[in-house]
């Protein structure tokens, strides 16, 4: 039993990341890569930015319009993968996707991102919980289908 299983704590983390999202800005360093993620089924419209130093994600951010779930999940993602190597970040993202697919995953890698595990039960919100993560995956050269 992790503290993230507590619904009230999960809710507060989402609230906090929605109202005060981390790394929500346009990254304008030289050689920044970006991926625009616009949904044709909902209103989320965000861009994920990454800056690499060799194999390391030196900086990562996002900007745009999104609902609570997409904003909070992308905010948490940026905290998780900043400073990680590309390979480490890919592993984290794959674990997250596995969690939402109700497959085995490593909760230690995902830290507070595990609060989104129940989203898999709300079919219409899975998209929101993954939009930023799929954008990040694309910047890492991974294609993740919805």
């Amino acid at each position, binding site marked *: 039993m992790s503290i993230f299983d507590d619904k009230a704590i999960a809710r507060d983390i989402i*609230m906090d990341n*929605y109202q005060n999202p981390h790394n929500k800005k346009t990254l304008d360093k030289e050689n920044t890569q970006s991926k625009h993620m616009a949904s044709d089924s*909902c*209103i989320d419209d965000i861009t994920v930015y990454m800056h690499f130093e060799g194999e390391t994600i030196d900086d990562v951010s996002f900007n745009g*319009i999104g609902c609570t*779930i997409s904003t909070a999940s992308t905010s948490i993602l940026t905290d998780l993968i900043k400073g990680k190597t590309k390979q480490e970040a890919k592993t984290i993202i794959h674990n997250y996707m596995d969690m939402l697919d109700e497959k085995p995953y490593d909760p230690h890698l995902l830290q507070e991102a595990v*609060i989104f595990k*129940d*989203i898999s039960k709300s079919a219409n919100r899975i998209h929101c919980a993954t939009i930023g993560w799929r954008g990040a995956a694309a910047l890492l050269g991974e294609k993740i289908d919805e």
Partner: protein
Amino acid sequence: MFDETAVRSHFPMIQNHPDLVYLDNAATAFKSDHMIQVVNDFYLRGTSNVHRGDYGLSIKASNDFDHVRDIVKDFIHAKSSKEIVFTSGASQSLNWIAYSYGLNHLKKDDVILTTEAEHASNILPWFKVCEATGAKIEYIPMQNDGSIHMDDFKNAMHDKVKIFAIAYVSNVLGVVQPLKQMIQIAHEYGAITVIDAAQAVPHMPVDVRDLDCDYLAFSGHKLGAAGGSGVLYGKYDLLENNDPPLYGGGSNARFDLCGNILLKHAPFKYEAGTPNVEGVLSLGAAIEFLQSIGMENIFEHEKQLKRYAVQRLQPLTHVHLYNATSESGLITFNVDGIFAQDVASYLNRHNIAVRSGNHCAKILVEIIGTSETVRASCYLYNTKADIDRLVDALTDITLEKCIEAAMV
């Protein structure tokens, strides 16, 4: 008089979902038992193609199919059933007008006059016409409640305007535009008038002769017909003197190997390919059902629901209403501090179906100052109790509750 209980008893979706409050009627409408019966009969007892066979089933199907043209003609008060083209819906109808009339008549620097609140289906085809012809689009200035001042419209009209294309009722704000006067003015400048009536025909009496519009488009599914049925109305001479954008079986009288094609007359030349027979039959049945209630009564019922909703929502200081004054049954709002999609998902947890989004009218953000809204839209089978459920759910909505609802 409008008997709410009797009306509701004809909709199996309502019987089968007694706890559901369905307020997404601008997207699509429930089907009446009458319409379902007609389509069912066609599948169980009447299946055949039309205008092809010399056998009883095909003759019966052809007669029933042709009869729907008369039903539609009477419903929108067209002069002749030859002015009724069956399409797959308003989107196809509007594309047909753009590609049949627009592409062949517009030239460089001609103007298509429209508004910034159009549905994609009444703007993207015109973008394509402009791309191909060098014509350009101009927008009539709009008030932030979606209404248009007649002076602004008059000032926007000029000799270069060849097409005036507008929604009768906006799909976002529900404003009923004063079309009759606009069309008259547009005609004084020699412009052709194109009316997107997708959100009008299902809800209010529409009279194309009184409006004097040149073209008008609507969808069947929004008035309770099957998906994939719709209508393009055009004045006969316009239909007859222009070429269809699609060719194939059923639309030609004869052709030869040299490429000479003799097209049938309107409306048939616009209906290449095997028609959506069951869709057309469902359209006839759905219209008959609406007529049995009366379009005036339906419009009055929706207006009452709208007024009731406004009256109940206005005291809620955290709810921002965008269209309190428009008369049709669309209620467009936001809840302060909560993203539209989160509001819609929360309402879904309360078994209330509404739409969140920018409703395909992506340009509208500049007019009403928000990129997304929640839209509740009424139809003849909605009740004040439905509005009460909506208002009650909105009364104590909070961001915390919306997030909890997403986490369940």
